[in-house]
């Protein structure tokens, strides 16, 4: 299960914006360098038109597409596809290194549910994660959309799914001192908006989860509910506030953090597949 750390290092400790992607039509793994060239030309052309790139800096954008064979759940999954945009300033000398300005990757982690039902000629990589300027995301997305007739949608994460994540992640064991298990709630509809950050010592959160979860390796909705109810009850005991009436907008643990706008950050390579699996599931349910 553990992927090559080299291959996965890029994915860690970055805030990724999430999208769901419908299957790509007539995508050929063998043509990656062609695609890179075409995307590069597309970006240059768009820049000429003066659209959607940062003005004022003379940059050549270099595109690199690569397959990450290790980043997949099972053999039924497609290998992840990484797109990287680098820049080299025209003004600087030939010795200057390329600077990575944007990366995005397509991924499927145990996404059989989708790939089973899809005709040939379609490649299923339902999860798309981006890091970098929105303008570049826009360019790359437009090109993929045009070329492979697919559709991108921002993947929001509901409070229900956020509470799954926090319950699950709070239960993971971490060797050394981890950061707190934090839940951030928002109450926007009051006369003055109120945000509440509720951070629990990771050992105590894990201790609570351990008494809630009955079967190792299996988590039920009921268990997640009990976990959350316990946290709500403890809070209510002190403050008389019903956190269940507030909107859960962000959860954060030593493993990973997730925001309801569809932004995640993964901190531990060991748990990368687990997190990706959850996100793939969310992406697929958004597509279907």
């Amino acid at each position, binding site marked *: 299960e553990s992927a090559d750390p080299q291959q996965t290092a890029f994915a860690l400790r970055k805030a990724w914006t999430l999208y769901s992607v419908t299957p790509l039509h007539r995508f050929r793994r063998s043509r990656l360098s062609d695609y890179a060239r075409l995307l590069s030309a597309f970006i240059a052309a768009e820049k000429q038109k003066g659209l959607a790139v940062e003005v004022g800096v003379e940059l050549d954008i270099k595109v690199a597409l690569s397959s990450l064979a290790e980043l997949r759940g099972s053999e039924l999954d497609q290998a992840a596809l990484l797109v990287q945009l680098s820049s080299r300033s025209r003004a600087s000398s030939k010795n200057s290194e390329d600077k990575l300005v944007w990366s995005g990757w397509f991924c499927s982690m145990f996404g059989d549910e989708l790939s089973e039902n899809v005709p040939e000629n379609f490649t299923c990589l339902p999860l798309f994660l981006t890091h970098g300027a929105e303008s570049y995301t826009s360019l790359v997305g437009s090109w993929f959309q045009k070329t492979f007739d697919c559709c991108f949608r921002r993947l929001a994460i509901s409070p229900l799914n956020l509470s799954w994540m926090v319950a699950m992640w709070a239960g993971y064991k971490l060797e050394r001192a981890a950061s707190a298990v934090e839940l951030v709630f928002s109450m926007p509809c009051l006369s*003055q908006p109120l945000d509440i950050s509720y951070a629990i010592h990771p050992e105590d959160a894990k201790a609570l989860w351990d008494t809630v979860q009955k079967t190792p390796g299996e988590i039920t909705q009921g268990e997640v509910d009990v976990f959350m109810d316990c946290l709500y009850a403890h809070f209510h005991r002190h403050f008389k506030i019903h956190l269940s009436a507030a909107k859960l907008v962000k959860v954060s643990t030593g493993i990973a953090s997730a925001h309801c706008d569809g932004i995640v950050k993964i901190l531990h390579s060991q748990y990368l597949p687990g997190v990706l699996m959850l996100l793939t599931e969310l992406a697929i349910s958004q597509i279907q």
Partner: protein
Amino acid sequence: MMRHGAGSDWSVRKAGAGSTGASEAAGPRRVRRSRDSAHRCPLSEGSEHSSERTHSNSPGRQPAPHPSARTRPRFPGGSIMDATVAEYIRRTVLKMPKDEIKMMLQKWGFLSEAQLQTLNFHQIKDNISHEVVQLCEENSADIKQAAALDIIYNHIYQNKRMWSVYQMKKSGEEDEYFDIADFKKKFKRRIRSALKNVTITFKEYEDNAIWIRVAWGTPYKKPNQYKPSYVVYHSQTPYIFISASMLKSNLPLLCQALIVASNYHDIREMELRSHSLNSLKDIVFKRYSQNFETYTPKPLQGGNVEPENADIRIIHENGREKERIHRLNQEAFGSGPQPQLEFAQYKLETMFKSGPKMDVLDKKEPFRCLVKFSSPHLLESLKSLAPAGMADAPLSPLLTCIPHKARNYFKIREKKKSFVSP
């Protein structure tokens, strides 16, 4: 068709938003460099000056050598101003919103009205700041004046800073007559006895507030004017408000100097912090409308619970409950406007108690949590929780006690039982 969360179509984005065009008509841009040594050209600089302003040339004036400046910029007019002072004044002016610069310079009073008339406030701020510096050079501004200008800016924009509250204690003597001159003298003496490289500036305001600005250096370095501490002291009270953008190492010295100067013997930091200085004052000076324990037995006139529904066909089902909540809120928060705080933080070290049916955690150790409430106006938002159905009424005393306990940082431990529980 690609759909973005915000609804915009990706393929038709314009670059306009990101472009850098200056938002002000620059006009013929006069190049005025800050007069540092790199750009100095003493003799030819005269030609740079615009002929629009009368320039006070005093050829006969001999610039006296200034001990602290090494490379002093000079130009016809013969005034000497330290390059660092010039730069500091320039940057202070740049911080000000353009339409307030004139007002602040007037409050400052260092430049004459005639000089202020010569300034063109309709050009870009960069140019205004350079012109101001030139005028300051004519008047030979030194760091004291520059610091005074900084206090004026920070007094008006006091809410940009984070303020902590300290309380001083007397050893039980009578309140002595407060002598401001004595206070200043003792304060300066105490600080300087430990650290020579400091800039200390005082300004008194009508509401009896004394503002103190201290820029800190080290035994070997001149004071850093860009990270001063600000102290606000109302002499009739034991409270000190400090905004320190400095290393914590200078804080003890500052506190020492304050108690020495004000004839107190001890000082402690309160657990109360906010950007709103006035709200902190409201809280510690008890200037907000508090709830006192006297309970008004008669119901509130008009039952102002839901004033917006004028349609009499609408009946409020929970009318009585709403009134009850409203009444309890009034008791807890008072009926006036609340002091403005932005956050409250609670470190909880209490036991976790599970509900009766839940077969969960039953540790003997505290369930450690850190809870932080944030809002542009925390107390108002807490006040609206129960009416909105998000909280029970009465709200927890942990929240309602914030103003009268004058704190927004709490550590909550389990109450110790005074008897052996069965």
